[in-house]
């Protein structure tokens, strides 16, 4: 990889750590241990179900919130505070800056998710006292969650390249919510008629199809994940994030810094 991109990414990671982003792990740990203790009275099967469902949903939501709130400030904050002046007057191209920032945030989320994953497995061990082969499915769910973060990060970055931080947060969060119900939107588009059919179809394909990334409840019931879905989700996430990032680069390349 281009060395300057790696330097920018690692500085972004350092910023997130020093801004105490990883402190969210404390809240996560409290939530999870609370849940594990509370459900500790019921049958093992239900306990496992609760820990996996609740744990993975929390991993996803915590991460999405971080992805949005850091993502919208990644570039706009640097423009606002003028820290960019002394970066872009060096041999750094604007697209390298954007990509570096994106990868830095993605790296932060991967590390954060790694610690959360340890928490989930610990809680699982606490309630069931052993691991079974099906528990490895959790890793696939975590992988999908990380792919989802890539999409949300790139969208936050895209929105913040042309609108205010507040609006960007609103846009990004709405897209995340709508995207989580993309399957339903597609079904609706299939049933609708006339103009609304066109609009719904266009919307259904424009919003990120995040429902395909949510396998939490199926793996909680130990249903296997098709290899084809893994491949499809990987390609889809990379394609979507690349598109959103390209849009952000295109806008950023042409704008004047304040």
């Amino acid at each position, binding site marked *: 990889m281009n060395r300057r991109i790696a330097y920018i990414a690692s500085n972004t990671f*350092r910023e997130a750590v020093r801004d105490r982003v990883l402190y969210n792990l404390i809240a996560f740990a409290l939530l999870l241990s609370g849940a594990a203790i509370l459900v500790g009275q019921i049958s093992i099967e239900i306990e496992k179900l609760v820990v996996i469902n609740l744990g993975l949903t929390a991993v996803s939501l915590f991460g999405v919130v971080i992805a949005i709130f850091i993502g919208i400030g990644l570039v706009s904050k640097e423009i606002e505070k003028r820290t960019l002046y002394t970066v872009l007057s060096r041999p750094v191209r604007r697209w390298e800056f954007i990509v570096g920032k994106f990868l830095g945030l993605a790296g932060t989320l991967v590390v954060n998710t790694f610690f959360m994953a340890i928490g989930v497995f610990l809680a699982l061990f606490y309630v069931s006292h052993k691991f079974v082969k099906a528990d490895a499915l959790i890793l696939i769910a975590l992988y999908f969650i990380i792919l989802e973060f890539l999409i949300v990060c790139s969208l936050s970055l895209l929105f913040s390249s042309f609108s205010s931080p507040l609006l960007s947060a609103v846009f990004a969060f709405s897209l995340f919510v709508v995207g989580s119900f993309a399957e339903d939107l597609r079904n609706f588009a299939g049933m609708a008629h006339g103009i609304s059919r066109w609009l719904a179809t266009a919307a259904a394909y424009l919003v990120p199809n995040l429902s395909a990334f949510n396998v939490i409840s199926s793996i909680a019931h130990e249903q296997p994940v098709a290899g084809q879905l893994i491949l499809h989700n990987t390609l889809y996430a990379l394609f979507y994030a690349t598109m959103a990032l390209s849009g952000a680069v295109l806008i950023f390349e042409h704008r004047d810094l304040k």
Partner: protein
Amino acid sequence: MPAIEILGLEKTYSVGFWRKRPKRALFPLQLTVEDGEIFGFLGPNGAGKTTTLKLLMGLVYPTSGSARILGQDWNEPAVKAQIGFLPEQPYFYDYLTAHELLEYYGQLSGVPAKQRSHRVNEVLHQVGLPDVKGLQLRKFSKGMLQRVGIAQAILHDPKVVFFDEPMSGLDPMGRHEVRDLMDELKYQGKTVFFSTHILSDAETLCDRVAIIHKGELRGVGAVEDLTSSVQGKIEVIWQGTQIPAAMKALGAECHVSGDRVRAIVDEKQQDAAIDALRRERQQLVSITPVRTTLESYFVEKLRRAETTAGKTV
């Protein structure tokens, strides 16, 4: 080869939220800075100095025109590796220490890993911040940030440096140190282009200056040429309080202050003035040619601009 060639750079911003209006910040600017010069870019607040520097750094895009730095297109990454930039009122990542910041900037500018930490210590020493290890930039005063700003601009040993108001935020001692540092850079063979609205900063330091006002270039030249545009006058000072009639007859403007008289006369009448004083047995103190200061040149230029602008309206 000139260090900097500005070829008709022009910038019109659009301002206003609802109804966008164009705002001309810089009229097409033509300017050449020679290799090894200290060049002062002078003008009052709002003249367009920062806009020019931001255009040259590729931070804003010109409405038209282009520039060449060290003979190459100004946006080439190869050029960027050889220039340094101090922004106006610089601000940096405040969660880093000065060492970390400079280490990072050294990476981005391609300073080899082996030399980096040595170089960081060297420049911090050079700008008078030898012991700030462990202190995050959020705890730095304005003057200290200005020094960090200068450090990051010279870190990678650039051939051309651009400073936007380098003395602002510094105490008199600090200003003096920055002046010495610019002299040192020139001595090392570098080209220094800096903007200022404080003329005395430029007067002693610059080989040449340009004067800009309301986005338009008003004059360029060597400081000596601009300041020695003596209007052919000399200043004569003598002991006493009397003004000989012969002196008045020469059309001298005389002022008595304390026990001395100061008179301004035409250069051509130097001999006649001395004779007049001798005849009256006045004791001569000094004769010096009147040099306009850069300040009065500047004021003169701006005033003229104002009146011509008034006429065209």
